[in-house]
């Protein structure tokens, strides 16, 4: 985890690798576009203001929480990115999770 309420870009992408099977990411000038073809959904994350090329730039947790909600992977992202939902907090798995 980065500074208060922010997370390193490389950690976010690593968490998505584990939580969002089959996603693709497209790197635009100002944002990442994260698409899950099986659901037809696309989520956007802004680029960090600094450190993007090194993967060390930080993105605010709120953007990640909303992305996780869109893809219904809040529980998984909360476990991979401790503190995303607050210290010691993590949403439960979705009810229809197998």
């Amino acid at each position, binding site marked *: 985890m980065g500074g*208060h*309420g922010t997370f390193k870009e490389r950690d976010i992408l690593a968490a998505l690798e584990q939580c969002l099977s089959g996603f693709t990411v497209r790197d*635009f*000038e*100002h*944002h990442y576009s994260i698409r899950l073809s099986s659901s037809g*959904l*696309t*989520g*956007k994350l*802004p680029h960090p203001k600094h450190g993007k090329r090194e993967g060390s730039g930080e993105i*605010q*947790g*709120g*953007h990640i*929480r*909303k*992305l996780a*909600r*869109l893809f*219904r992977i809040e529980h998984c992202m909360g476990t991979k990115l401790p*503190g995303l*939902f*607050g*210290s010691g907090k993590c949403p439960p798995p979705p009810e229809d999770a197998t």
Partner: protein
Amino acid sequence: MVAWQHRIPTGPVKTATQGTEKTINMTNEVGVTMTQEPMQTLPLLFSFREKVVGKGFLAEVSMSGRALLEIEEIDGESEVWISGVQPVGFSGGGRNREEAFEDFHQMWTTILYDLMAEADDFQAFEASAKEFLAAQSPNISKLWDDAVVEVRKRNHSDPGLKTQAASTPVTFEVEELPLTPAANQIDGAALQPKVAA
């Protein structure tokens, strides 16, 4: 340019909330003091219009869309986040509603800039922009619908936000404009102030 145009879709308005205060006491325009518990989630309607310059062409994108405003408490600190409902998939945040809406609008705009940067002609931009603007998710739309129900149930109102019918349709338009000085026109609709009712 950001116009504070988002509106709470609900019924009649009486009073309002600010930021993250626990309980709101305020006096309305006729001098009646009322108390109201703040809502942590508000369904919003917004209107944006931006000109976007491409490779030898100019486009104007206008949209009336839906968003969800949420006040989050993270480790004792309050944050305001606004996420797209129609279109879905992006968000903006800040320490207060104005900052969050500014960030939300900026994200909407820069996504369009990025799509424009990839487009070789207007038709390519139009297709990708419309795909972005039309995006929806049933789960996120349900959250917005639920928030509308809650606003109505509590007869919630807000002095900073006009009230508008939740049934207001989502619309968007992507137009090609002539790449001439005639395209330089002040957006009167965006500049027009909104009066809380």
